[in-house]
């Protein structure tokens, strides 16, 4: 019988190794799997490369993982935010390597890893600092930069609902990077707020088919949190 339901976050994260590349879903605070990140802090894996759109908010979740000194490098599009003080300090003191990637390239490089694409030519960033010295090519009169996949050893994502086959649906704009990160990792671990029986999820509305998911863990629902912007006084 296939049963991808893990009993606990600790069980789901038991095999994460030092030096892993960890894809972490979320955009700002929407869809960020804080419970799994807290579990990773407890689990102790270090020397990690983390891929996320941002670089942590306030002192919790990803910011706490950074603060705990577990991350060697972060690959992201928008580290600097109103509440990214933990990242800012580590970056400025040279304790954290940053690879800055345009947001769409980040998503597509992750998708490419999941889809078995060796590399792809993308117009974004051509002629800018962020294209670095990567190969370029003119195709039908337009300029492109060669972009390589970003593959994860582990993906940590936050979904809404799941079943024992690992099928997932998401909630609103918290979907963001979840579906592509799930595809791109050797081992995808998702939290859900609800686990249902096989057949209860509408097959037309399953966003991530279970083939991309290795373990799911149920967590309690908590109120969504603001983050990443300066609140009006």
């Amino acid at each position: 019988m296939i049963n991808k339901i893990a009993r606990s976050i600790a069980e789901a994260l038991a095999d994460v190794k030092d030096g892993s590349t960890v894809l972490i879903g979320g955009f700002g605070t929407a869809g960020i799997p804080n419970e799994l990140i807290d579990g990773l802090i407890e689990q102790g894996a270090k020397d990690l490369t983390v891929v996320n759109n941002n670089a942590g908010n306030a002192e919790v979740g990803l910011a706490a993982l950074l603060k705990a000194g577990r991350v060697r490098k972060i690959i992201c599009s928008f580290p600097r935010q109103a509440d990214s003080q933990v990242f800012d300090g580590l970056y400025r003191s040279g304790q954290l390597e940053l690879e800055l990637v345009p947001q769409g390239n980040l998503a597509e490089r992750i998708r490419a890893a999941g889809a078995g694409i060796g590399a792809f030519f993308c117009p974004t960033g051509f002629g800018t600092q962020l294209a670095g010295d990567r190969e370029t090519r003119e195709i039908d009169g337009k300029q492109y930069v060669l972009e390589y996949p970003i593959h994860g050893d582990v993906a940590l994502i936050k979904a809404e609902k799941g079943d024992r086959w690992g099928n997932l649906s998401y909630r609103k704009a918290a979907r963001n990077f979840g579906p592509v990160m799930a595809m791109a990792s050797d081992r995808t671990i998702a939290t859900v707020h609800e686990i249902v029986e096989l057949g209860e999820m509408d097959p037309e509305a399953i966003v991530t088919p279970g083939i991309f998911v290795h373990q799911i863990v149920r967590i309690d629902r908590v109120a969504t949190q603001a983050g990443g912007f300066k609140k009006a006084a």
Partner: protein
Amino acid sequence: MSYQKRTKDQLAARVAQDIFDGAVVNLGIGQPTLVANHLPEGREVILHSENGILGMGPAPAEGEEDYDLINAGKQPVTLLKGGSFFHHADSFAMMRGGHLDICVLGAFQVSATGDLANWSTGEPGAIPAVGGAMDLAIGAKQTWVMMDLLTKKGESKIVAQCSYPLTGIACVKRVYSDLATLECTPQGLKLIDKVEGLDHAELEKLVGLPIQPE
């Protein structure tokens, strides 16, 4: 003759005036967000947010905030009837694939031929952050910039060549500013309109570049 600069709201209204019925539009973080408040009545416009929303609506009433439903600036928003959610690779395919009609962005500098610099001032020690700016700039069918024409020091933000790090090359079609609306072309700047009382020679002097009359 004297002239009055467009206020932020007047500038937003000026941009909104050119957004056609049925357009799918991405409004960048900051000043461009104001454009949504000025869309002329009777025009149905679909707002795209790069974190995975089409049909984005205004901010929710106080107490109704849901931080799973935020815009690119991470502020809480709402979803209009007909709206949809999708993942990031699809969202950016909408840009690069040429499905998005218009994006409106802020800028540090724009060159006369439409190069854009809006993600980094290149200052040493500054923490870089790019987000979706590069994808949007080269992806939308039309990229419009909305900005003050001059810096606080009175220097033109429209330049012969950007000195700040580039976001994209020859990607800006129009600049909507507090003093004039200009088109960027391979041949340089072309006037679309200017505020009342500002004569052409004076505008050219402020910009420091030749501007082809309307």
